[in-house]
């Protein structure tokens, strides 16, 4: 120590101290830099939540309560998860009109995807719930369509019809047509059970099962679905087909018969 102290007035002392200080700063920076980055991420996340909270206060709080606790006009959002928000707002069902009928219909979304993500992040921060699925979870690539058809007929077809054309429920409620619904939204609907639809959580309908169902719907109910018979008449089954045959088939024959008999072939029209 004495040795060091004796040399403190050495002409190179200032330089040595400066180098040491620089090294220390650099080392400290190297140690703390990752922590700073994580903090930056967290800040971005909390900024998204903050952004979502603002949107929520303007667009959602009047029905769902200022803290998502729910009111007499709307259910509590604590624990519904980001997937439920992405589905409800992404399909335009939310925000709903103040006086909707038996069921809130699908319509053009009001918010952009970025705003929806912010809202979802805010609602997810209120309580743990299912997250928005990643594309690899819902993409129909590489799924078993036949198994999907079996699962769809066992779990979904009772309400949504055997090819997802939808159907009626009680008191004006209905299961909507699933034609060309975004696979992400189908996945989220199975996961969260919107409105009166029961949920099919991963514990009873696995991720792979959900993927198979989405692949089946993609095969049988989209714009590009191959339909060898053509003119499916809503795909509702033999009742609508029979009705069409009776009304338009038989009606057409009667109309032709009446037309033939009503037109006179006489030279002098009376």
């Amino acid at each position, binding site marked *: 120590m004495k040795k060091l102290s004796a040399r403190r007035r050495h002409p190179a002392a200032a330089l040595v101290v400066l180098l040491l200080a620089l090294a220390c700063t650099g080392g400290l920076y190297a140690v703390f830099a990752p922590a700073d980055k994580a903090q930056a991420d967290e800040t971005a996340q909390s900024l998204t939540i903050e952004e979502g909270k603002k949107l929520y206060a303007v667009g959602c709080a009047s029905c769902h309560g200022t803290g998502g606790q729910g009111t007499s006009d709307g259910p509590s959002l604590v624990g519904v998860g980001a997937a439920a928000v992405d589905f409800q707002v992404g399909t335009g069902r939310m925000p709903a009109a103040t006086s909707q009928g038996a069921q809130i219909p699908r319509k053009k979304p009001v918010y952009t995807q970025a705003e929806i993500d912010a809202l979802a992040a805010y609602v997810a921060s209120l309580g743990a719930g299912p997250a928005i699925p990643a594309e690899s979870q819902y993409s129909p690539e590489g799924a078993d369509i036949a198994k999907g058809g079996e*699962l769809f007929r*066992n*779990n979904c077809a*009772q*309400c949504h019809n055997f090819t997802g054309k939808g*159907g009626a*429920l*009680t008191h004006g*409620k209905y*299961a909507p047509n699933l034609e060309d619904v975004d696979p992400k939204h189908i996945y989220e609907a199975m996961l969260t*059970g919107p*409105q*009166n*639809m*029961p*949920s*099919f*959580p991963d*514990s*009873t*309908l*696995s991720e792979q*099962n959900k993927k198979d169902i989405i692949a089946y719907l993609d095969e049988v109910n989209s714009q*590009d*679905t*191959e*339909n*060898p*018979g*053509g*003119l*499916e008449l809503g795909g509702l089954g033999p009742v609508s087909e029979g009705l069409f045959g009776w009304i338009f088939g038989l009606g057409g024959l009667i109309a032709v018969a009446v037309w*033939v008999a009503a037109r006179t*072939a*006489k*030279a*002098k029209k*009376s």
Partner: protein
Amino acid sequence: MSSQIPEENLPAAQDTAHGAVGVADEKNPFADPGLPPHEHRRQDIDERAAKRSERTVALLFTVSMLATIGFIAAFVAIPVDKIVYIFPFGHVSALNFALGVTLGVSLFTIGAGAVHWARTLMSDEELTDERHAIEAEPEVRAKVMDDFRQGAKESQLGRRKLIRNTMFGALAVVPLSGVVLLRELGPLPEDKLRHTLWSKGKLLINQNTGEPMRPSDIVTGSLTFAKPEGLEEHDHDFNNEIAKAALMLVRIQPEDIKDKRTMEWGHEGILAYSKICTHVGCPISLYEQQTHHVLCPCHQSTFDLSDGAKVIFGPAGHALPQLRIGVNDEGYLEALSDFEEPVGPAFWERG
């Protein structure tokens, strides 16, 4: 009768004065107006028009022949799995579409040609053809009745009562052989309608994954279908057994369950009900998780699962049978007994 018909309305009179119209007067207020005067068609007068009609009919028949050739060509040329887009039908089979159109055209043009031929070229003069009397001549009727009486007397049926009575007996008994044959339509149902595969200790197997379930797998508001442990889809009696044993599992918040027995037979709000409608046995699982109602798609019977699956609407006569469930030592859901009552539609011995 015939003497009362005015002379001028008889066909003989009409032929001489075609177009004469009967006039009602005091003596005969409902005079037959007869046929209207015959009008000629353009084709009857103008040979060029008749030629045009002939060519039209021939054209229609020719189109039919071409369409038939098109049908055969389409059948030979178009592969069975070729899909094409045709508005407004969408992505349809090219072969189905071509066969339908060509066959439709060939049949329609035969019909249209025949109708056009009949309307423009065949004779269109209306004729009256009187019916003859339905009744036979009196002599013929007398002969038939005499023959019948003679035959009855010669058979001695009225005199020999023993033959008559045994014949009636034989005729009355012979249908019994047919009734006895009905016995062989199949085995008697015995008590098959009263029992299902469920019994104490049978695990509830998730029909999607084929795995047993823990109570934590069934979340509130979810819907799951279960089959009894040991029943596999490739079993030869799978359809017969699942038709009785099909089960739907829902979870309702305990405070929302209105019926005490419903709560006791479930496990922490997990309720297991038969999926077979008690009206005519349709699979019934249109579950509304907010109202806890289940709707049958066949005749709209509605059941309240939070209240013992009581019928709240529609033609069903019984509540859906509930299965008593619990949790075994390993923490899996299991049945505690078979259904207490027969599942599915009522039958007459059910009471």
